[in-house]
């Protein structure tokens, strides 16, 4: 660790007005979007990433990390106030947050959520700062074989956690990888799936595809739900009196904050696993070690603290594989990786050798993003509490026109607006048929890495794939990838059986 450069980078980030402003704006945007039920952090980043065009790398990364951290916390606001998690990562917060609100402690619950989110985020950022260089050191020795299998491993994990059907998750992942092959082949410049359309020669632009899949598709589905009367209009009139928890509460919740932050960080560091898993693991872990587990779920501060520190801990954890291996930890970091690539920087082990100052600036930006989230949260918690009541009938058209403009502005090309619309339709259909979207996104990022390393490996070994046996680390990744998919199939089977039994019991109770 180069301490001098690390402190210098912190100084450069914390005292740069543009970075400060962008991070604060990002945090405000993230909390705002996260507070609206149904608007995920992924959608927030997809929607706001065009605002980072034209900026230098660090301000734009500050903006995106601000949205990421803000979105993670923002989800808790609606979970606590209206029993509807703003983001999947806030799903466990409502278990104790909403009962606290019902007891008239909405302000206390929100202040605990904010403070725990901040502490969890700082734990994640610290672990990232010290752990990722060690991983990068090991990864420096990786050849094309290891990189290929690392990408396969990354995909296997995201597929494994992508929902009820593993087959659908894998189809989505292969579809995403196939999309990556559109355009000129990177090795021989052969045209693939271009059909004489010139804008396709350079391949599909990542951002319009992303905005289409995650924002436009959601608008189409939202309109459908509204017309069918399935869209609930939420509202909350809770008065918020507390901004930060008092010392007594902090002393009560600190063990949950630390364990939640660490659990979140380590789960976030597993490629593909994100906040939605971490919060339940942290909640379960802290509940089982509690002296009074029977009180969990009735509205206790420890419940809120354990989940909120875990989901913000994930933000630091997910950055570990992104920076050290070039493999995104979750959907949001996949978009952040896209932003790096857009700026001409390829994260991965070589970044620690060639651009250490940039790496340290990213560390500092994450720390700043958590601080910005705390400042924005303290200053605007009463306002954000009103956001949960925003009318969707106004919100949907606003998001649509911002999304389509974002798709245009990446290359200043109307063709990208068309691409965004097409992927909006594809995303809507995939949602209808319950095909997960996240594997497509991850595959779009990992696909080129996979193909380039595959071609390089095969060229070096005269087309003999069997030569992979000589690379024990690569084999290790492959075994873990296969094991992950097999375990997920087994685990999903158990979950499906349990859910079917629960449904049957519920039906029997109704009758």
């Amino acid at each position, binding site marked *: 660790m180069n301490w001098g450069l690390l402190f210098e980078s912190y100084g450069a980030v914390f005292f740069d007005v543009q970075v400060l402003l962008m991070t604060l704006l990002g945090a405000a945007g993230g909390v705002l979007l996260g507070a609206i039920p149904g608007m995920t952090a992924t959608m927030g980043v997809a929607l706001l990433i065009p605002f980072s065009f034209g900026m230098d790398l660090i301000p734009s990364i500050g903006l995106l990390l601000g949205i990421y951290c803000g979105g993670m916390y923002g989800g808790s606001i609606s979970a606590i106030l209206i029993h509807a998690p703003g983001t999947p990562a806030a799903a466990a917060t409502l278990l104790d947050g909403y009962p606290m609100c019902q007891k008239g402690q909405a302000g206390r619950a929100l202040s605990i959520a904010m403070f725990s989110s901040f502490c969890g985020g700082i734990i994640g950022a610290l672990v990232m700062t010290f752990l990722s260089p060690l991983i990068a050191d090991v990864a420096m020795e990786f050849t094309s074989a290891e990189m290929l299998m690392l990408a396969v491993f990354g995909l296997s994990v995201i597929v494994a956690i992508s929902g009820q059907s593993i087959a659908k998750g894998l189809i989505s992942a292969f579809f995403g990888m196939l999309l990556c092959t559109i355009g000129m082949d990177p090795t021989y410049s052969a045209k*693939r799936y271009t059909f004489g359309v010139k804008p396709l020669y350079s391949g599909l632009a990542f951002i319009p595809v992303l905005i289409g899949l995650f924002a436009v598709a959601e608008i189409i589905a939202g309109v459908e739900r509204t017309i069918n009367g399935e869209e609930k209009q939420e509202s909350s009139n809770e008065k918020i009196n507390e901004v930060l928890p008092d010392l007594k509460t902090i002393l009560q919740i600190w063990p949950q904050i630390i364990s939640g932050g660490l659990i979140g960080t380590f789960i976030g560091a597993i490629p593909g696993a994100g906040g939605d898993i971490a919060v339940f693991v942290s909640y379960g872990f802290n509940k089982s070690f509690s002296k009074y587990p029977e009180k969990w779920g009735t509205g206790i501060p420890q419940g809120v603290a354990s989940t909120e520190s875990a989901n913000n801990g994930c933000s630091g954890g997910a950055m570990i594989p992104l920076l050290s291996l070039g493999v995104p930890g979750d959907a949001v970091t996949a978009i952040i990786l896209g932003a790096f690539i857009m700026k001409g920087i390829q994260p991965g082990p070589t970044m620690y050798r060639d651009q250490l100052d940039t790496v340290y600036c990213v560390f500092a930006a994450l720390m700043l993003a958590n601080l910005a989230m705390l400042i924005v949260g303290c200053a605007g918690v009463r306002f954000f509490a009103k956001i949960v009541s925003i009318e969707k009938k106004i919100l949907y058209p606003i998001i649509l026109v911002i999304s389509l403009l974002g798709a245009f502005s990446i290359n200043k090309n109307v063709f990208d607006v068309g691409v965004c619309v097409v992927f909006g339709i594809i995303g809507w259909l995939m949602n209808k048929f319950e095909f997960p979207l996240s594997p497509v996104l991850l595959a779009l990022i990992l696909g080129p890495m996979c193909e380039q390393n595959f071609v390089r490996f095969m060229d070096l070994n005269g087309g003999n794939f069997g030569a992979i046996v000589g690379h024990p680390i690569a084999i290790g990744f492959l075994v873990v990838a296969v094991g992950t998919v097999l375990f997920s199939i087994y685990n999903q089977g158990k979950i499906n059986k349990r859910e079917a039994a629960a449904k049957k019991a519920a039906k029997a109770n109704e009758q």
Partner: protein
Amino acid sequence: MKKTQTKAFSNLVASLILLAFEAWAYFQTLGFKIVKKAAVQPATFPQIMCIGMMIFTVILLIQSILKLKKADPDDPMMEASASINIIKNKGVQAAAFVIVLCIAYAALFEVLGYVLVSTLIAAVIMWLIGKRDVKQIVLVSILVPLLMWFVFYKLLTVNIPMGVLTPLKNLVDMI
């Protein structure tokens, strides 16, 4: 519930559509350039992806067929599929209308310009989903695209087509 309204049936339909798409995508790869002495041809990777997709689509197809065979129409536990019936389902009709609007938006983006085309689409969608406060519709649908244009054009220096409203851009430039 009819078997055709179950999730298993919709999975079966989806698998058949996907298989047709995958066969088409694979067939396309046969026309890619062949490079002499290359260990991996430009077509190899897309072919592997097509085959991978096909394998899991066939698995999904078999799962759906087995579920449909076992399915009992009187079983209350049968999972219903999401509707894509454009004739009967008003929500799907509205979604299809939004899709048509989006396609028209992309086609008219350069001709009419971002602000005008966005104002139109925002107003139509708000009306479509039941917003009836004309003042709010007019205000939101005009102000949001104008503000976005201003932010992107002036602050982020992205040149956005203004189409018939180009004089407005010239006016802002003059100020």
